[in-house]
């Protein structure tokens, strides 16, 4: 039974990693070698594709822009979702159920629907082509999800802890920052992971709301397609570089995420 499980898991991991491996080795090949034939290892190992990207500001600024608005989005989302999730997990109030459901419906709104209105809204308030515009737009789907996940984690903390803290003379803000947030660290880790994920991978809104100054890397990548064909090597290198920040994020939050998932409260 255990061997079967291990084999099954191994096959699935192979299925997940093979396409990424293919992209990775392709990024170290020249275009002639890519189009010349199939090989599992670059024969003439080259960093030329990466040099193309790192020597051109219009290329690497794409990465900076993406990381900037994703971090901004994570901060905004957590800042508004933490108190709200606390309220939903601890109190009843007028319209709580309706509000919660209404928040979730925003997660169901297709970005394509909001494309044109967002464009007009942010243009009219002078936020078009800024990082904050993309970060705010991504809150549309991240905030409801964050509230939902955090509410689950917070409901797992017994309310006696709140009451004991108040009896000990803690004020609400101090209790929240000093006692409560450390208790749900793992939950915040998981939430941040999901926020990063959904904001980092989104392209449609990020591309529409920006033109030059805040242009995300996903939009810059379309430059590799030109009249003379597709520049496969640079495309693959750019793709690999978009996966790297994700890998770093998983690496840094791995303990929290593993613990958060293992707590079984997502």
């Amino acid at each position: 039974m255990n061997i079967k499980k291990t084999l099954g898991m191994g096959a699935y991991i192979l299925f997940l990693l093979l396409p990424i491996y293919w992209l990775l080795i392709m990024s170290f090949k020249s275009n002639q070698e890519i189009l010349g034939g199939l090989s599992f290892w670059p024969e003439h190992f080259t960093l030329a594709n990466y040099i193309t990207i790192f020597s051109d500001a219009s290329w690497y600024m794409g990465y900076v822009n993406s990381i900037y608005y994703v971090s901004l989005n994570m901060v905004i989302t957590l800042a508004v979702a933490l108190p709200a999730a606390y309220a939903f997990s601890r109190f009843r109030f007028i319209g709580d159920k309706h509000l919660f459901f209404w928040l979730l419906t925003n997660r169901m709104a297709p970005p394509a629907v909001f494309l044109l209105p967002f464009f007009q809204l942010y243009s009219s308030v002078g936020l078009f082509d800024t990082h904050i515009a993309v970060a705010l737009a991504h809150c549309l789907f991240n905030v409801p999800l964050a509230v939902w996940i955090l509410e689950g984690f917070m409901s797992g903390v017994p309310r006696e802890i709140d009451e004991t803290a108040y009896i000990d003379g803690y004020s609400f803000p101090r209790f929240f920052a000093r006692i409560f947030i450390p208790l749900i660290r793992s939950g915040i880790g998981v939430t941040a992971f999901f926020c990063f994920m959904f904001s980092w991978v989104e392209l449609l809104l990020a591309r529409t709301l920006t033109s030059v100054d805040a242009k995300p890397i996903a939009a810059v990548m379309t430059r590799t397609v030109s009249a003379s064909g597709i520049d496969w090597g640079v495309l693959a290198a750019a793709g690999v570089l978009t996966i790297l920040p994700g890998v770093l994020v998983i690496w840094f939050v791995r303990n929290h995420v593993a613990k958060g998932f293992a707590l079984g409260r997502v």
Partner: protein
Amino acid sequence: MIKPYTNKAWYLVLPVFALVAFSAIIPLMTVVNYSIQDIFDANTRYFVGTEWYREILNDTRLHDSLVRQFIFSGSVLLIEIPLGILVALMMPARGPGSVVCLLVLALPLLVPLNVVGTIWQIFGRADIGLFGWALNSLGINYNYAANPMDAWFTVLLMDVWHWTSLVALLCYSGLRAIPDAYYQAARIDRASNWAVFRFIQLPKLKNVLLIGVLLRFMDSFMIYTEPFVLTGGGPGNSTTFLSQTLTKMAVGQFDIGPAGAFSIIYFLIILLVSWLFYTAMTHNDGK
């Protein structure tokens, strides 16, 4: 545990409310505005009532992409939910192995949508991609750019590659929440593996599966970038789903009246189906 009733809690919810109101209610009202008027420029607009809605409901473009969309989302759920549960059951429960599995599973989730398209665009090509090359050398004539069936297969496989991990991670987390005592009781009763799954694990997974089904349904129903990068919605219109039809209409042709009506209908369909899923999966909770 009964929660205390206090309306002061609204202060805590207020920031979320203000933020979401700004980024959801205003744009949604703008869309409604588009959908009932014929707008020429900033000063010339006519109220047309339900004309755009009638036009859109009789539009064959909408019908075709709606049918394609339902087939796609249905297949995605049928494949990814069982596969995700299976993967979660196969994962080691603890130790360094489980951390490695979690990290690898999370990897596809963090690949930007357009790069997912790029990866499979490369991977599936017969001349430079391992997958396309392998299929063709096995004697299967596979070309996603020319053959609609192959394009469908690739888009589905791509989605399974990308998103099954999400279901697996959720289920893994759900499985870890089952106390050991349940398994011990099952062992005493000599329950079969299937009985353990059917009567202990599956019921405990219900909540996370609800999240998984809803998330996968919503996201697959809004799919845009991946097929767009892979084939541009082609060959022909065979992988053009609702979002792409809508974007073409709104940004490409700038038919904002019909596009507004389309958006409202689109949104309502997602709401309705999500509500159906939610009700169907929670109706016997006794709440």
